[in-house]
């Protein structure tokens, strides 16, 4: 470590926040850009599976709640792109990288939403898993990221409660609703466990991120925490987690559970998930179809500025 690096690490160890204009190692900057960018993309792509049910929401109230939720996700995307921008990379540049496949988003959004119960499962499980990841990140070392996470976490836990409320209605509703609820849990359980990533006990990469407080916990810690919180919630709903091996391990003080199918995880990551192509094509289409709109606003802004300048010159 250079003296600069040492000083930097000391600040982090002391719990200080790093601000955008301060010195930071190139690796720290790069890792942050990748992580914040991916997180931002996940918020944006994550609008699609839930957006899929907005036009079919079953009541006016549910429609509003879902719409507000998806709107929040767009807002989270904004906060995060702004945080990334402080590191010198523009939203447009990040978007191009998403669309070209150079940057990823959370693989969970490559699974389809097939029934209304999925609006419950996504809120309960997917937002639940996201919160597990995000809560510790409120204490991350990079100031803008930490502040973005604080705002986001407040809203996410609200979303999770709303998702659970939908599951409750479904699980205690008609036999068909109950069947949809169980089916949603069956489909989203393992993909949710995958959200924490493969076991990282041997990853050097992860160790560096943890030293920098960009990553606060290991993937396995967070996954265990998620399982421990979620299994009793499923029981309360009267639903069965689709893992026959689940049982409480008195000794460990944790639930034992089966690993997800990591082959499937890597297949989806490679682009072969059920909806990878559709998700990116949807965003590509939005981007392409919106070009004239963005250009129009830019042109107007430039004209207005020129007019103001001309008026000022004339006045002087």
């Amino acid at each position, binding site marked *: 470590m250079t003296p600069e690096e040492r000083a930097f690490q000391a600040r982090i160890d002391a719990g200080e926040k790093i601000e955008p204009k301060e010195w930071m190692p190139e690796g720290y900057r790069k890792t942050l850009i990748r992580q914040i960018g991916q997180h931002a993309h996940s918020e944006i792509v994550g609008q699609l599976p839930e957006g899929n049910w907005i036009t079919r929401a079953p009541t006016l109230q549910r429609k*509003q709640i879902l719409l507000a939720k998806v709107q929040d996700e767009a807002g989270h995307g904004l906060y995060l792109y702004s945080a990334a921008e402080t590191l010198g990379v523009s939203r447009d540049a990040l978007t191009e990288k998403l669309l070209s496949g150079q940057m990823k988003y959370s693989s969970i959004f490559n699974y389809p939403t097939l029934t209304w119960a999925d609006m419950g499962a996504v809120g309960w499980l997917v937002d639940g898993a996201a919160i597990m990841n995000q809560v510790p990140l409120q204490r991350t070392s990079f100031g803008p990221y930490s502040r973005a996470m604080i705002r986001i976490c407040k809203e996410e836990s609200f979303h999770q409660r709303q998702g659970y409320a939908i599951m409750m209605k479904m699980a205690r509703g008609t036999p068909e609703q109950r069947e949809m609820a169980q089916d949603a849990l069956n489909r989203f359980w393992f993909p949710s466990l995958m959200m924490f990533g493969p076991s990282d006990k041997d990853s050097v990469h992860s160790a560096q991120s943890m030293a920098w407080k960009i990553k606060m916990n290991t993937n396995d810690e967070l996954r265990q925490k998620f399982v421990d919180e979620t299994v009793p919630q499923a029981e309360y709903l009267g639903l069965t987690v689709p893992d026959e091996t689940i049982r409480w391990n008195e000794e460990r003080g944790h639930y034992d559970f089966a690993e997800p199918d990591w082959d499937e995880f890597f297949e989806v990551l490679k682009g072969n998930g059920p909806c990878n192509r559709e998700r990116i094509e949807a965003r590509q289409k*939005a981007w392409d179809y919106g070009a004239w709109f963005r*250009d129009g606003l830019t042109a107007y802004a430039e004209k207005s500025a020129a007019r103001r300048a001309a008026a000022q010159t004339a006045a002087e």
Partner: protein
Amino acid sequence: GAAAFEWLCRLGDATLILGHRLSEWCGKGPALEEDIALANVSLDLIGHTEMWLALAGEVEEKGRSADHLAYLRDAMKFRNPLLVELPNRDMALTTMRQFLFDAWHFEMLSALVDSRSPRVAEIAAKALKEVSYHIERSQDLVIRLGDGTEESRARMQDALERLWPYTGELFAADAVDAAIAAAGIGPAADSLKAPWEALVTETLAEATLTRPETKQDAQTGGKTGRHTEHLGFLLAEMQFLQRTYPGAEW
């Protein structure tokens, strides 16, 4: 009684269907800020729908809730003007429609704040706060996109031409409107025309757009239940769960 029910459905269905159309943009908009703003307007409109249709249900006295009215009537029973059920097409049409509607909506609510019906006045007051923001936003967008690039101007002008024949219906008065006006519940439908015209004319000029020469009332019928072919498809999607699982709670 019957006139009030019809009239409240006209209001509630207009906000419902337009709110629904806007919600179709979710995740597909041209820029994050716009996506968020669109969702906001959509949310507001669906909120208004809840209030208007709940009141309609009360007035009708058949025990129908806002959800019942929204999800269990077929197209013939919907009373929204045709303008709001047209497909989104692109953001030019969506934006221009929003402006033309907001300009009417704002005038309507401004008048309803003084309704002789306290319930109507109360709902209008709540809604007006939000709609004041809607009209400000859509007017601003029309100006910026009209006076933007050549393409954005052309798209906005095309949208305007397409929508113009549907604007007259907003001001067309029939027996229902007359009864409501006579009872002091709402304004005469055509009394909103002059302020609407003033705002639209001024805005189009600033947007460097040309006011169409075509008839404004060529396309009407929605307010009496004669819709376009588009509404049926919208409702098939919107009402699917309620129709498929009757009596379930969500």
